[in-house]
């Protein structure tokens, strides 16, 4: 049996399993088919959301600057991203002659894979989860760290000084912000008593949202998550004004599009996990769980965009100061207080 079927209620799965048994087909085949179905659903979800998110980013930036944003492709410019994606698909695949061919070619895929894998443990509702791993949040932390080697591959493989600068900055930044990120998440795990994201949501249904008891933890987590997703004000990795485009300077066409896809998939998953850990995930009254989940996720995404179009990029030294001298002590204090609270409870 494959637990935690996405989308169809589990009696559908049981019926299909009975059908397979009656015909003498191996149940392993059903498991593979279910996995493929889940992967297709998740990929479609990511692709649609990224298309919408890029449009939303352009709209929010335009609204904040008293502009209209894309208006001419489809109603309110909704098809703009699709048109851009088609254009990128048709572009020539340029690989610089000095580049390390294979590393250069593989880097976008290595970036995109962990971004997709995070969605494996995301609980869209009480039932809709690809696989409710009992190490859920640890898996998320591991997958977000996987971005570092892929950025290093892209930067080093491009054989271009801007790219290497971007890659080195990404290594420094992501490693620094991984620590407070995980420490803030650990405080939540202590409260919930489980690493599984679904159990964390269940714990919040019993005790109320963790943002109420963990405001400091939420702040630390959200800032660190912004840095992990390379969002402004922490977009030093791409920093157009200094590094051209950082690690993806040499990328164009569909490979660049995959980087972009991964970036917005990371924003989506980061916000979704923040919503799951601190805002009660899919739990909420009246509306169906999926709606609550998407509402909370999109609220956090909007705040991320709002921050991006408000504050300027910070310097490298400020970035390191914030990570190691502010966020890390705050996360440790928060974790200590939470630990004591859990002990005496």
């Amino acid at each position, binding site marked *: 049996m494959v637990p935690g079927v996405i989308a169809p209620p589990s009696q559908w799965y049981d019926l299909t399993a009975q059908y397979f048994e009656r015909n003498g087909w191996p149940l392993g085949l059903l498991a593979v088919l279910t996995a493929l179905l889940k992967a297709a659903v998740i990929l479609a979800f990511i692709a649609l959301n990224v298309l919408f998110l890029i449009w939303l980013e352009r709209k929010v930036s335009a609204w904040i600057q008293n502009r209209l944003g894309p208006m001419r492709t489809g109603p309110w410019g909704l098809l703009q991203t699709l048109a851009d994606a088609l254009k990128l698909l048709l572009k020539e695949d340029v690989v610089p002659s000095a580049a390390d061919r294979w590393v250069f070619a593989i880097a976008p895929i290595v970036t995109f894979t962990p971004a997709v894998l995070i969605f494996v443990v995301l609980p869209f509702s009480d039932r809709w989860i690809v696989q409710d791993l009992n190490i859920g949040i640890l898996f998320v932390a591991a997958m977000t760290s996987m971005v570092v080697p892929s950025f290093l591959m892209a930067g080093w493989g491009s054989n271009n000084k801007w790219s290497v600068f971007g890659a080195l900055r990404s290594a420094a930044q992501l490693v620094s912000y991984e620590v407070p990120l995980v420490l803030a998440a650990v405080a939540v795990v202590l409260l919930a008593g489980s690493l599984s994201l679904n159990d964390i949501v269940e714990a919040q249904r019993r005790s109320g949202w963790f943002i109420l008891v963990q405001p400091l933890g939420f702040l630390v987590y959200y800032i660190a998550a912004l840095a992990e997703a390379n969002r402004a004000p922490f977009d030093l990795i791409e920093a157009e004004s200094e590094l051209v485009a950082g690690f993806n300077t040499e990328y164009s066409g569909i490979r660049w599009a995959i980087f972009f896809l991964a970036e917005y998939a990371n924003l989506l998953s980061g916000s979704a996990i923040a919503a799951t850990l601190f805002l009660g995930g899919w739990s909420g009254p009246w509306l169906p769980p999926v709606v609550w989940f998407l509402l909370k996720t999109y609220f956090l995404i909007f705040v991320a965009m709002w921050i991006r179009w*408000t504050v300027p990029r910070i310097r490298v030294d400020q970035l390191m100061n914030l990570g190691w001298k502010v966020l890390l002590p705050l996360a440790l204090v928060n974790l200590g207080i939470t630990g004591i609270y859990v002990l005496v409870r």
Partner: protein
Amino acid sequence: MRTLTTMALALWNTLVGMGITIKNMLFRPRITLQYPDERPSLPIGSRGIPVLLSDEQGELKCVVCELCEKICPVHIIEIKWHRDDETRKKVLDEFNLDASRCMLCGLCAEVCPAEAIAMSDHYELASFDLPSLVYDKEKLQELGRPQKTPIVNFAIKTEG
């Protein structure tokens, strides 16, 4: 202690900035004009290409003094005329204006003693072939006919 103050200040400043941006997003009007669909209402006195103006009878006001042809810094006005044998008046035969080279200086309109030429609000002159940008007498008269405003700063408006 200093670190704590700095942190609190940084957070506060970010929040203030976010307040400003959300105010802009929600309450300030959009300034974008969706150009081919919406057009700017040009202020009176703005300059497009010069056009010829007509009097109440629909006749050109031009007295064929040729001052505009002489003053034009880029020599794009070409005037041909003959003298009417009976009335002994100059009669305008041709008035050609090469809009592709007009620099919209407005000197022709300034120098005109009869207020017969004025800068118009025609500014969308793009064309695929150059000769079509040489406007003749009839075209210029036609452009100047729907005059909406009196001449202000040597310019008129023909629309809205």
